[in-house]
């Protein structure tokens, strides 16, 4: 399985802090498995994606294997 972690507002959109999806998982597979609002948000370049703690530059090139953790990261918020 691949763990998908939702941070910040994306956790609200997803309705949960994380999700388990079958491995292997690519970009299209990820989007198809997510709630539509989250899949749509991922198109926004301000929402970043990390695999096993490393940010990826090329989101459509995402490749996750069994045991990997994908994090979906909206812009940081604070102040």
């Amino acid at each position, binding site marked *: 399985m691949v763990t998908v*972690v939702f*941070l*910040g*507002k994306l*956790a*609200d959109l997803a309705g949960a802090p994380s999700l388990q999806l079958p491995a292997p998982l690519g970009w299209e597979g990820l989007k198809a498995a997510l709630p539509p609002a989250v899949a749509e948000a991922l198109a926004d370049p301000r929402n970043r994606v*990390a695999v*096993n*703690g490393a*940010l990826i530059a090329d989101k459509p090139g995402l490749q996750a294997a069994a045991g990997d*953790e994908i*994090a979906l*990261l*909206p*812009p*940081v*918020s*604070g*102040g």
Partner: protein
Amino acid sequence: MRDIRLLPHMFIPGTLIGPFTQANPGLGGVCTFVGEVRYDEGVEALELTHYEPLTLPGMHELADRAFERFTLMGLLMVHRVGMMRPGEPIVCVSAAALHRRDAIDAVDFCMDHLKSAAWFWKREKRGDGWHWIEPRTQDHADLARWQA
């Protein structure tokens, strides 16, 4: 002396700053900033979410940059995560140096980056539920000062 931490529980800044100062003998000055959760009208609680695999390494990278940019003897950077009440400390950054300019500027630099370029997501609880907080325009302007 370098001490970078995420704390899931309430802390008392004085208990960190005393030992930090002692751990840097021969210093000329120590600058410390402590941020507290403000008593904003109607705010009952504040929650700070982080993502462990990015947040702590990001703070270490920020410390590396501070050590490169300023002549420091020591740097303490402690950030709360989790649920907080108004009045509780949320962040404490302390820099020890031979000269005050380095100590003050390093704290300023770290705070600006922690506020709007570190992996934290902050939301506050009001009577009508939870609200995500966006960085203020001022925070982005503060950060831009270091990019020259």
